[in-house]
């Protein structure tokens, strides 16, 4: 297991290096290299950039400086705001995005497993039909519509209650977090519910469940020890990609609910063409996602002995 984790970590580092390199050469490969093109860049910012990125040096030296900076955890400085460090931006805003994302993924995973198991147990009966109808809707509705609907319902709930239970926007208290993270998790939850349901049904037809029944085990024990445990495995394998989906979805939710997260910052940087911030944030996000996928894989290893022991 340790060996497996180490192997995955090394793979992860190579992947991050690949992302960083691709990012670097993509930025410099584009005609009219946005970093070299000095129009619209204030001279004092330009001086900073030159110092930090070694823009006056040949490209291979620049690449080397860039990699060294990234490796030492320095993601660069802003292209449009003087003395604004990407690290500061990340330090300030990533906490918020991470909290939102973790809440959303927990909500999505627990909901998906619960609803998926429930629909499989009530297959073709009322609860199954109702939940699966909602799931199909959940898969087909874009995330920003959920965000909008979430905000609308917050307004309605507050109106109905006569006081502000959930703030419409902003961040800080638990009440701020509930609705955005639910809204963010909904699409993934629908997807996971579907996956869990078909996985439960597949396991229900498997030979080893028949064996368990032939042993005369109580139904609840079969469900708990045999069916659920094996049905959850495919759900765990897609959690990695789901984290990526939730991260991107987070951009939208942060915009709609005016949450001061890194995602909103990133979109702003995109809209303002703040190339260095985009570059730094992208590599940071890439590294984060690669790391999360490794974490999920290692967790998977603990649940599935076939991976753990090989």
């Amino acid at each position, binding site marked *: 297991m340790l060996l497996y984790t180490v192997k995955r970590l090394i793979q992860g580092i190579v992947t991050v290096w690949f*992302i960083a390199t691709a990012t670097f050469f993509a930025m410099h490969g584009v005609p009219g290299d946005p970093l070299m093109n000095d129009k619209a860049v204030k001279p004092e910012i330009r001086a900073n950039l030159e110092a930090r990125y070694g823009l006056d040096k040949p490209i291979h030296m620049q690449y080397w400086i860039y990699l060294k900076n990234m490796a030492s955890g320095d993601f660069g400085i802003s292209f449009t705001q003087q003395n604004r460090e990407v690290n500061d931006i990340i330090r300030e805003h990533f906490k918020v995005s991470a909290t939102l994302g973790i809440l959303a993924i927990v909500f999505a995973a627990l909901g998906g497993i619960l609803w998926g198991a429930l629909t499989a147990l009530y297959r073709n009966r009322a609860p199954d039909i109702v939940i699966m109808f909602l799931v199909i809707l959940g898969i087909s509705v874009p995330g920003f519509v959920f965000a909008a609907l979430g905000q609308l319902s917050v307004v309605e709930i507050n109106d109905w209650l006569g006081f502000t239970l959930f703030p419409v926007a902003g961040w800080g208290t638990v009440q701020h977090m509930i609705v955005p993270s639910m809204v963010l998790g909904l699409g993934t939850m629908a997807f996971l519910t579907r996956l869990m349901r078909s996985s439960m049904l597949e396991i229900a037809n498997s030979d080893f469940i028949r064996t368990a029944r032939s042993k005369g085990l109580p139904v609840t024990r079969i469900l708990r020890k045999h069916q659920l445990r094996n049905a959850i495995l495919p759900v765990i394998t897609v959690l990695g990609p789901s984290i990526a989906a939730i991260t991107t979805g987070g951009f939208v939710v942060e915009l709609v609910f005016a949450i001061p997260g890194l995602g909103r910052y990133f979109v702003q940087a995109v809209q303002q063409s703040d190339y260095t911030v*985009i570059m730094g944030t992208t590599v940071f996000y890439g590294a984060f996602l690669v790391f999360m996928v490794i974490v999920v894989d290692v967790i998977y290893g603990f649940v599935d002995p076939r991976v753990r022991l090989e």
Partner: protein
Amino acid sequence: MAEGTLSWERVQVEREVETVSRPSLSYWQDAWIRLKANRRALISLYLVIALVAFTLLGPFVWTVDPAAQDLDQISVPPGADRTATVVGDYSPWRGVTATATADDGGELAAPVSVSVVDQPTTNSVRLRWDPVPGAGGYRVYRNRYDPEPDGALGLPIAEILNPVNVSFEDRLDLKAETYFYSVVALDGRGRESPNYTTATAGVTRVITAAEAVEKGLIDNESDVQLGDTVEMAFHPLGTDYLGRDMLARLMHGARVSLFIGIVAPFFFVIIGILYGSAAGFMGGRADQVLMRFADFVVALPFLLFMILLRILFNVESGDSGIGPMLVAMVLLSWPAAARLVRGQILQIREEGYIGASRLLGAKTNYLILRHMIPNTMGVILVTLTFAVPSAIFTEAFLSFIGMGVAPPTPSWGSMCNEGLKTMLTTPHELIAPAAFISITVLAFNLLGDGLRDALDARMRATE
């Protein structure tokens, strides 16, 4: 049983050694029969066809220009009243003046009453109020909602600095709805009194005969008389915040959304097939290297490449970038399809019938053409169908954050983005494009499910 009826005569039963109980069907015939039996998938298929027809033929049937602004009907929801009363030309109003009684020196009061003079129309709303003793002027507010109970007066629409003028004519962007006008008194230094009086004006839509002719609602001015009603232009799905016809915009937006939604998957699935089958055929070391590269590509940040491609394509921020969006999707989305095809190829390579065919002397080309391609087609088609919804989502997401299609070009995603801003007041501007996205995605998802069930028994969902 009456045994007397039993006959012990030997019979020779006609036996067909190889009984084929059903006519033999080709793979595709069989799949089509199974698809037809799946009602949900069939409805989705018709829906997809209808959407394509909506996109391609719609603009010929509904010829309204999607960019034309109908300034009389802005943010009008579908089904709203669209009659206008014909009136004569506008004649200016001189206003009302009055002098207040002597000032008692206390806090400024609210006007005793505010009233609407004449019929309030989309041409003008005329207000007059009782002078307030000691006032140095007045400020008029307009709101679409009742200011009570929060005291939200709305938009300050006029400031009258002469206390004798106790009237105001509002001609600013009036719509056929109810407005709440509040008047507050200002003291000599322009400070506002906390007291206000509100009047309600139910505005009716009016139009002059000349305007009606100009807008093509009637042929001749003589066709109508004062007081008649004419129908304003028809917008089946209402209009957006600039008065543009929603239906026409949805049709034109569908072009972008469906174009990206279908063309991008088509290309990246083709790249995926080529790459995946190359990896699958070569096997060994080459396969490992190719697939590891695919893993890296999956990890690449999509948004960054979008931005770079926009620079490459010379798209300024705020402009539409359909090209970069397409290229970014194709360049970064193929690995999933490649992995799937490779898996299929590896699996099929091990199948007995490939070995059998090879033993019979089949050449590689024949194997690929006769066995590999037909047996991977199903998976590929299913992948393609499932790739469409995600591409449509991606387009919507990019347009939503302003990286995709930008105004004025309509796309469902950018329409949602615009609709979101007015979600609380005119929800139809968000609901219509969001519903189109959802229905399209739903149709492709259900069609994909149906195709998967029909094409590949091994992939059959346990439903």
